[in-house]
């Protein structure tokens, strides 16, 4: 099992595409705008166009389609559940009956809704992963820190939150690798994963999680020491190698997103 290959959410793919070169603030704001738009789009046509748009953006960002789709795998169960529930319970009493399974009635309206919600869900996740594919975590946190800065007055620790997120993203691959190593070590001692009831499978993970947590705490201690040794003392007086700078491209990208959102929300 190669966990690092399986989980692509939150992974940055270093390239030098126009998307990568945009200011992170533009990308964060644009992604947020697109996500809000997703919930306001009333029609399949709108979703379809947005899907086409996202595909175009993936191509522009030089992200392999297969790689992006792999990001959907961890949410497959949730997706199926959503579709299932909506098919049988989402339509209400109205609409033509498609088929009946015992007490469960699938209506046409329900099925339509299920597809709609399912598609919206997929697009939502794709938009979010696209952001992380084309924005390095450091840029992402720099952008977030800047966007959160006005809220410092009401007690939002902008720098601390940003730093926490950046470190979390940095350690995802390291901890995945370690999980894999521990699982293999436990398997060599006769542990079985992915067999038996859900309860049993969950229990099989205890001997993986305990060492993983212990090691994560030890890592955090060492990392804190290393950061202090590198003169880290919070956000005060810190500068950045990569300054955030609005360029013409950001203006154009922002305008595009606003225009597209306005059209999609009205498309019937």
């Amino acid at each position: 099992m190669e966990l690092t290959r399986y989980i692509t959410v939150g992974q940055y793919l270093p390239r030098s595409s126009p998307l990568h070169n945009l200011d992170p603030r533009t990308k964060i704001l644009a992604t947020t705008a697109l996500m809000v738009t997703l919930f306001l789009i009333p029609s399949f046509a709108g979703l379809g166009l947005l899907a086409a748009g996202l595909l175009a953006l993936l191509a522009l960002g030089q992200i392999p389609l297969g790689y992006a789709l792999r990001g959907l795998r961890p949410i497959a169960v949730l997706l199926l559940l959503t579709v299932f529930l909506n098919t049988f319970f989402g339509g209400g009493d109205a609409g033509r009956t498609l088929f009946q399974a015992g007490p469960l009635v699938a209506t046409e309206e329900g099925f339509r809704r299920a597809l709609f919600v399912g598609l919206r869900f997929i697009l939502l996740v794709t938009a979010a992963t696209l952001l992380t594919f084309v924005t390095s975590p450091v840029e992402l946190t720099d952008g977030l820190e800047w966007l959160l800065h006005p809220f410092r007055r009401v007690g939002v620790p902008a720098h601390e939150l940003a730093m926490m997120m950046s470190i979390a993203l940095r350690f995802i691959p390291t901890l995945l690798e370690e999980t894999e190593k521990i699982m293999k070590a436990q398997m060599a001692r006769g542990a079985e994963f992915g067999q038996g009831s859900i309860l049993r499978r969950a229990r099989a993970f205890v001997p993986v999680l305990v060492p993983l947590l212990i090691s994560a705490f030890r890592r955090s201690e060492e990392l804190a020491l290393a950061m202090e040794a590198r003169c880290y003392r919070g956000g005060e007086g810190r500068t950045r190698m990569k300054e955030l700078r609005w360029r013409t491209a950001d203006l154009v990208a922002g305008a595009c997103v606003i225009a597209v959102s306005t059209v999609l929300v009205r498309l019937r």
Partner: protein
Amino acid sequence: MSEPLIEVTDLRYVYHSDTPQAVVALDGLSFSVEPGEYLGIVGGNGSGKSTLAKHLNALLLPASGTVRVGGLDTRDRAAIWEIRRRVGMIFQNPDNQLVATVVEEDVAFGPENLGLPPAMIRERVGEALAAVGMTEFRRRAPHLLSGGQKQRVAIAGILAMRPACLVLDEATTMLDPAGRAEVLETLAVLNRRDGVTIMLISHAMEDLADAGRIIAMDRGRIVLDGPAARVMARADEIPGGRLGAPQMAKLARWLREDGLRLPEGAHTVEALADAVAAAAGLGTQGDV
């Protein structure tokens, strides 16, 4: 004579002091480090070498005695950041000291903390990566690098702060032989070419082949301090065991005991071979 870079005077440190579990980790150490030196510190588990390292940049403060870095006392709260900038520290596990997900952003972390202007940070990152030979990896993700490469990135991250001295606390221990050789080579070049002062702390004498001077520690005390060749030749006297002299130093001593006249200080295969050839070629005593 210029002022020493680091001056440790009668340093004592006790873990869990005032409790029954009190452990004396450092018991009256005194030594100094001159600019441009390549100093090796060797000792077994519990000899206090890591505790000593943490005193050099004020991560730990002395229970008694003083540690001075370029004249600054580590107990002076106001000087702490200047001391940490001057004495750069590299730790054992390369994964646990890299903060960023892109190599160049990690190298920039130190200078960013110092509050330098962006253009200067960029310049220093470029220089530091070039100095450790990692320029072509600047856009890579650190978790995809080998152990030796990660450790070189960590060294670059320290160099970018323009320290006066690099302290490596068991920085080669977790690496495979190739990675270890890679890091040692980088250090040797930095010391010789750029005059960077290096303090390499290790439990393995083999790692210290490039050091000009070696301090051997045991139970919080210095047991030997002198030119590398002399300390290596006396490696077996260092208590604490498991500090075998490098194979070449051992071989040289055996040959010397057999009557071959060999100079001290040849502890790489090439150097010893040359020395033996010279001794044999001159037809000195012995039957090589």
